């Protein structure tokens, strides 16, 4: 496919990798913010092919992973109501709540439906005027314009049986929270390309300046990631700390203004809890008061939510990069994608699931490895295999 295949070329990947090795003189620790980037890095073995001492810490940018347990439990309580059609992006369905998950609830008869776009949830509401349709509005800045549009359209078209359970998080406050932590080891960031496609990168300029860290807006294909790593290391080696843009084909400094305007007309910034991390000030969106009638938390009384995480799960330390899945006693044994204990094992954006699907730490005889390491192995496909 155009603009996709070109950025997966193993020959070019090797050239970029050699260039990274050539310019690296010291150990450096980088963080890729986005779970989609983690997926590519682990799957392609990019982290293992980097020079000795260059370490990739996998960031908290997995919306499925950081949606707080309270919100998952609220989703479960709302979805269990007989008058409700509960709609969600697919990867939230297997996220463990305190006692169950949405998919299990669906198997027990709850009307839980996967939608690709929040506008599909709106269509379901139009088609089912006698039922309440609730959409689980999770995600980072990437899903916010879509989720905001659904709410704005519901208001404009008077679709009053539609509401959203909001759990929106923002990237820059999470980065500064990490940088403020005394345990922080991150020296440079690969910023999330699609978050920046919408938001631009002006928010990152004061962060690079204040914390003296290079921030490289980076795409999602193997060559994008290798080039982003190369640009970040080049800055570190040269003692620079700027915001640079690797993902020039999709990202501009200002972002998409109309999307930003729509988001800020429907949402406002507020404190938000991150699963495994805790509350980060001003790190999420909530509905503005004028859209309160579309707030599922106000529409449905879910009672007291008592949350309980699985005691063996170290998701918090994984999300902040303090530990890797290989440090977890439950990884690959008690916890796997079929039966996840914690959210990072659910979504392929999650570090645990990314490790698992690449067969990391599962023994050489593992039948789970479906990785196709583009970087370490010779070109996968023979000429003309496409």
């Amino acid at each position, binding site marked *: *496919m*155009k*603009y*996709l*295949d*070109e950025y*997966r*070329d*193993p*020959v*070019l990947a090797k*050239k*970029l990798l050699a260039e990274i090795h050539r310019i690296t003189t010291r150990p450096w620790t980088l963080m890729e913010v986005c*779970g*989609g980037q983690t*997926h590519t890095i682990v799957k392609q073995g990019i982290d293992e092919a980097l020079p000795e001492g260059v370490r990739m810490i996998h960031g908290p*940018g*997995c*919306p499925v992973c950081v949606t707080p347990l309270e919100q998952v439990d609220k989703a479960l309580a709302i979805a269990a109501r007989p008058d409700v059609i509960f709609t969600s*992006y*697919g*990867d*939230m369905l297997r996220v463990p709540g305190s006692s169950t998950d949405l*998919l299990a609830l*669906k198997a027990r008869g709850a009307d*839980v439906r*996967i*939608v*690709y*776009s929040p*506008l599909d949830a709106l269509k379901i509401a139009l088609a089912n005027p006698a039922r309440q349709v609730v959409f689980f509005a*999770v*995600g*980072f800045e*990437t*899903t916010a*314009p*879509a989720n905001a*549009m659904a709410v704005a359209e519901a208001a*404009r078209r008077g679709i009053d049986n539609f509401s959203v359970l909001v759990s929106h998080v923002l*990237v820059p406050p999470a980065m500064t929270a990490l940088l403020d932590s005394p345990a922080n080891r991150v020296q440079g960031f690969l910023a999330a390309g*699609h*978050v920046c*496609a*919408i938001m631009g990168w002006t928010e990152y300029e004061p962060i690079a300046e204040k914390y003296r860290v290079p921030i490289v807006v980076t795409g*999602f294909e193997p060559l994008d990631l290798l080039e982003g790593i190369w640009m970040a290391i080049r800055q570190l080696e040269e003692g620079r700390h700027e915001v640079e843009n690797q993902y*020039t*084909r*999709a990202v501009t400094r200002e972002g*998409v203004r*109309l*999307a930003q305007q729509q988001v800020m007309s429907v949402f406002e910034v507020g404190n938000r809890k991150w699963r495994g991390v805790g509350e980060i000030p001003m790190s999420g969106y909530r509905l503005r008061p004028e859209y309160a009638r579309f707030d599922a938390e106000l529409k449905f009384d879910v009672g007291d939510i008592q949350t309980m995480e699985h005691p063996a799960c170290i998701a918090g330390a994984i999300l902040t990069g303090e530990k890797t899945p290989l440090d977890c006693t439950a990884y690959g044994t008690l916890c796997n994608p079929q039966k996840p204990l914690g959210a990072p094992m659910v*979504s*392929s*954006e999650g570090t645990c*699931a990314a490790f698992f699907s690449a067969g990391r730490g599962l023994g050489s005889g593992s039948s789970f490895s479906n990785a*196709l390491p583009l970087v370490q192995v010779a070109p996968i*496909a023979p000429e003309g*295999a*496409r």
Partner: protein
Amino acid sequence: MCLGIPGKVTEIRDEAGLAMGKVDFGGVRKDACLAYLPDIKLGDYVIVHVGFAISQVDEAEALKTLEILGEMGVMEPELMTMGPGMDAPAVVSDDAPGALTFDPALPPSSMAGPVA
């Protein structure tokens, strides 16, 4: 949940006052909301995420990057990673009948992909 996929705009229409269209991803055609990119034209490439065009692909920039990096490609069957979840009906063409009736109760082995 942040994976977006580049595709070509093949249809632009007004749907109840909202700019919608179809985007072709290498043969799979999906509905997408185009409201955030009012200047988009037929034949333009956009990045689509959760049913919304979130960015126009800058062809000149794309070519420039490729010029720097060289030219050629190896196809990997990864169209599947375009949706907000492998469980999602993301890769089902909207032209196909029953595109939205995808059964979510798929075996977990189909979990491969999306995405911040």
